[in-house]
């Protein structure tokens, strides 16, 4: 018997909390790589929601996992390009802090 793990809502609530934590990190951190890590947290929260819906709603069986695999592929592409951009900017500006990337404001 299970009171929690057999219901859909706890998984969705966990995914919502993880997404909120990731969005806070994206908005609040100064380091560009921290912001990318927060994006990974948010993508994982979406993955968890997709998998939970696929597991608990019979008409979505299999589709949740397919979505999650596609999201993982897109996240890998996003991490590659994002980190390459951060390294390219770091080579010019010698800092990973996003609030010091202010060339276009001056």
């Amino acid at each position, binding site marked *: 018997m299970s009171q929690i793990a057999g219901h859909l809502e706890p998984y969705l609530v966990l995914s919502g909390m993880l997404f909120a934590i990731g969005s806070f990190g994206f908005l609040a951190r100064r380091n560009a790589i921290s912001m990318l890590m927060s994006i990974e947290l948010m993508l994982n929260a979406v993955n968890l929601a997709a998998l939970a819906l696929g597991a608990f709603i019979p008409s979505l069986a*299999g589709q949740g996992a397919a979505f999650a695999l596609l999201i993982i592929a897109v996240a890998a592409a996003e991490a590659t390009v994002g980190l390459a951009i951060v390294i390219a900017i770091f080579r010019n500006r010698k800092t990973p802090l996003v609030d010091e990337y202010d060339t276009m404001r001056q």
Partner: protein
Amino acid sequence: MPLPDVIPFIGLGWSDVLFLMLSGVVLAAAFAVVFSRDIIKSGLFLILTLGALAGIYVMLGAAIVAGAQVLVYIGAISVLILFAIMLTQTKVAPMKLAFQTQVAPAALAAVLLAVLFGLAFGSTNWGSTVFTDTPAATGTAPVAAALFGPYLLAFEIASVLILAAVIGGLYLAMEPKADEVSEELQ
């Protein structure tokens, strides 16, 4: 002696305890990712978050996604992030002022978002099945039927996207050659 179905005194099943432990690890490690001042520690806590999430994926019966999570996220993306951290670590940057000036509005927005999610998830009628234990593992056949049936176009676009990302990442992170730099400067 077989274990009892329900843990005495707490009234929760064993899978509940597993879910609570894994989700506690996920949330605590995610908080550590966001809040730790040393960025290399947040990278390591990110690995812990992703590993515990892989455990939750197994509980949801999606072993293939848990395997992809371990291979792609923990094996590749985390290593990429750790390398990028090591390449961009400077003496002054990591310790002082890890947060922007907008940290208070960001915290407010995140809390509001979490409350909104909770209200929306609680008030929606999902029409979901309730399992006596965790959802049964369905195997990979329905996943393949979905991935190579209705989502075949998305699958192919994802493969093209990964190829483009690999080439683009190589081009962006490439050291500019010395003669190109001098040409740009002239």
